[in-house]
């Protein structure tokens, strides 16, 4: 309000309200001694200075958060009975909650299975993956060993049903036949001049390693615990890095660009809820020092924290705005061989149009960040020259990766390309073939000669 409601002289709106409502507005809100939802239990106070403190009882609060998780899972067909789900676990609060909730879903499914007569709906499988980044942060090796021990005990406590734990060293992205993967990783990261670029490249490699362990171990879903708050930061970092086109691909509930589709069941929960839930349920977490950010990512995190202070619902508004951007065709569960999927599930997926047709691959993807690229952007399609791997890499990358990840001069770039995991390089070759085919497709009806006859 521009004017102070008390003692206002300017004859503005507030005066017109009757005294009754004015008093209610001015009076200090008396402590509600009942939960505003169920109206029977005593409300919880977390005393963390956050919003909505002291309004819900423990049960209603918990149900609310779990409810959002479950709604996301069912409405986007994230986990169905025949699935084998890998939960990416960093030790942080969001992934801890994701793991806990997935575990509870699994327990419920198991109960139903054991209770049902015909045992028609199998129980989905759950595994846990932790990416060990010691190779990138050698100074943290002892901390990492302790963390892994703690993770092992945490995961084993979450049974039955038992869950496999996969500790994935990040250098595994280079494949088992790479000579000295740790050294190669260090060389790769050192050749990136920009701090933010280095950090982002590491994130891309992390995802690649998760994909690798998931597909090699028969998982068909990767659960990532990204919450609303993290996504809000991502919206802003993507914007300031010129990645506005691909932004909508990263922030949906489902991201099926990858071999093993990624699902975000906690996308609609804010960090405050997650932190409070961990407190409430005694869920322990571990904060690794390598989690800290630098450069642009750090600047954005501080900015979002500042905005949150000014208005606690700002994160939600940011994500809501970004959610209005048009998603991509791959932001749905992909169409696959349905033979293992129970009939009921198949019917539901078809009815709600929750699957996409995988043959519609019209986007070019950046080999490093896997971001879909604006066709009109890739104007260097004719840049290709035989044997010029580094130039092909430059041409295939999005403008953001070109600037912040690729080294600026040709020879460093070539060396950089040699350090990249084979999977990323094969993307480049794949795209080279694709773009010619793509162009041909567009002008096919006007071509008079066959390809071989054209000079």
């Amino acid at each position, binding site marked *: *309000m*521009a*004017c102070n409601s008390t003692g206002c002289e*300017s*004859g*503005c*709106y507030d005066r017109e309200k009757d005294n009754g409502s004015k008093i209610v507005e001015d009076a200090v809100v008396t402590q509600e001694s009942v939960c505003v939802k169920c109206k029977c239990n005593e409300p919880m106070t977390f005393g963390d200075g956050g919003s909505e403190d002291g309004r819900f009882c423990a049960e209603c609060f918990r149900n609310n958060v779990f409810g959002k998780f479950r709604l996301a899972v069912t409405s986007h067909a994230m986990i169905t009975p025949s699935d084998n789900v890998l939960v990416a676990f960093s030790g942080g609060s969001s992934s801890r909650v994701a793991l806990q909730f997935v575990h509870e879903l699994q327990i419920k499914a198991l109960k139903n299975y054991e209770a049902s007569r015909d045992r028609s709906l199998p129980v989905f499988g759950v595994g846990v993956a932790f990416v060990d980044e010691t190779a990138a942060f050698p100074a943290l090796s002892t901390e990492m060993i302790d963390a892994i021990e703690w993770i092992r005990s945490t995961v084993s406590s979450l049974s039955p049903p038992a869950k496999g734990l996969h500790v994935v060293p990040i250098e595994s992205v280079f494949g088992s036949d790479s000579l000295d993967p740790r050294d190669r990783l260090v060389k790769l990261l050192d050749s990136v001049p*920009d701090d*933010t670029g280095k950090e982002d490249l590491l994130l891309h490699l992390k995802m690649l390693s998760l994909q690798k362990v998931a597909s090699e171990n028969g998982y068909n879903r990767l659960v990532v615990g990204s919450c609303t708050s993290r996504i809000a930061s991502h*919206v*802003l970092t*993507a*914007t*300031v*890095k*010129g*990645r*506005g*086109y691909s*932004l*909508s691909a990263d922030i949906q509930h489902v991201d099926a660009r990858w071999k093993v589709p990624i699902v975000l069941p906690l996308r609609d929960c804010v960090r405050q809820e997650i932190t409070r839930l961990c407190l409430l349920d005694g869920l322990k977490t571990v904060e690794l020092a390598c989690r800290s950010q630098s*450069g*642009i990512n750090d*600047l954005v995190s501080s*900015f979002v924290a*500042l*905005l949150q202070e*000014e208005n606690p619902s*700002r994160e939600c*508004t*940011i994500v*809501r*705005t*970004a959610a*209005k*951007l*048009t998603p991509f065709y791959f932001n749905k569960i992909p169409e696959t061989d349905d033979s293992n999927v129970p009939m009921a599930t198949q019917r539901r997926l078809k009815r709600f149009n929750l699957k996409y047709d995988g043959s519609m691959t019209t986007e070019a993807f950046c080999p490093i960040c896997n971001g879909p690229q*604006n066709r009109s952007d890739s104007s260097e399609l004719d840049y290709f020259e035989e044997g010029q791997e580094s130039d092909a890499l430059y041409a295939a990358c999005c*403008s*953001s990766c070109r*600037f912040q990840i690729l080294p*600026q*001069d040709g020879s460093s770039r070539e060396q950089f390309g040699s350090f990249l995991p084979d999977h990323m390089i094969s993307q480049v070759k794949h795209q080279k073939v694709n773009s010619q085919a793509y162009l041909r497709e567009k002008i096919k009806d006007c071509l008079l000669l066959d390809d071989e006859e054209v000079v």
Partner: protein
Amino acid sequence: MESKSKKAGATRLCCLCILRRPVLKRPKTLQQICRECFYEVFEEEIHQVIVQNRLFKSGERVAIGASGGKDSTVLAYVLSELNRRHNYGLDLFLLSIDEGITGYRDDSLETVKRNEVQYGLPLQIVSYKDLYGWTMDDIVKMIGLKNNCTFCGVFRRQALDRGAALLKVDKLVTGHNADDIAETVLLNILRGDIARLSRCTSITTGEDGPIPRCKPFKYTYEKEIVMYAYFKKLDYFSTECIYSPNAYRGFVREFIKDLERLRPRAILDIIKSGEDFRIATTTKMPEQGTCERCGYISSQKWCKACVLLEGLNRGLPKMGIGRPRGVNGDHKKDTKKPGPAVKSIESKQCGSLDFQNFGN
């Protein structure tokens, strides 16, 4: 380019001409260049923006929104220079808005009057007092410092259109620079305004309205504009509006300044993101109609300026501020016209306003 700068760095010569001593580091690219090369790249880049985006046609009458601040002063200077140099064939005018802010606007108007003489461009001044019956000083006295920028922005937009009509120009140019547009992109994300988000990066807007406006400085950094004005010793008024400190934009401005320090090209990257956002073009364009009260272009029954004015005149300063609470619907209850006692300008129909007797 790489080897050039390496050599230049070693012998301390301008990156571009490799002739003169560098006197500045270019904010956009951090290149170390001499004054003359700076003028050249600065002016040439703007010329390229004008040409590639086809901003003008030969023979057009163009009004430059002139506040007396650095953006509009540099714009007036550069545009008249490029107009001469490249034969754009434009008829240029200065259009200034007097919001009635004592100690700020009266000083900056003096600057614009000097610009009129210095650049030889005819000047037209339009005031809020004449147009709406309220000065910003009056408005702030009534509503305080929280939403005053909303009033000023809305009134200014219409005032510029009215002034442009007075001058009978074909186009309006404003000095919005890259920093402004980047701020607006971020602001619209923070505020949830997807419709504005889709429009705010357009270099030309309002082609289907009373008067199209364009922003030749869309890719020009604020810091470079300041640098240009500084080196060329251009006459401009450099104080920030006295009513602006509480604007929400301030948050974003600080953030962008920090961002620029880390990565100068981030400002252009934000604009690029804004241009590339996948926003369905079909759904959210507001329907264009005219205001029932004054005939100005509007997507609602009454244009925003009329809504705000009505609020001011009725002592309801929150009217038209914040989320729509059926404000326009409220007018259905208020069928009686403003009483005969209210003989001020703002209640008259637009068509009946006698423009001939206004201003100087």
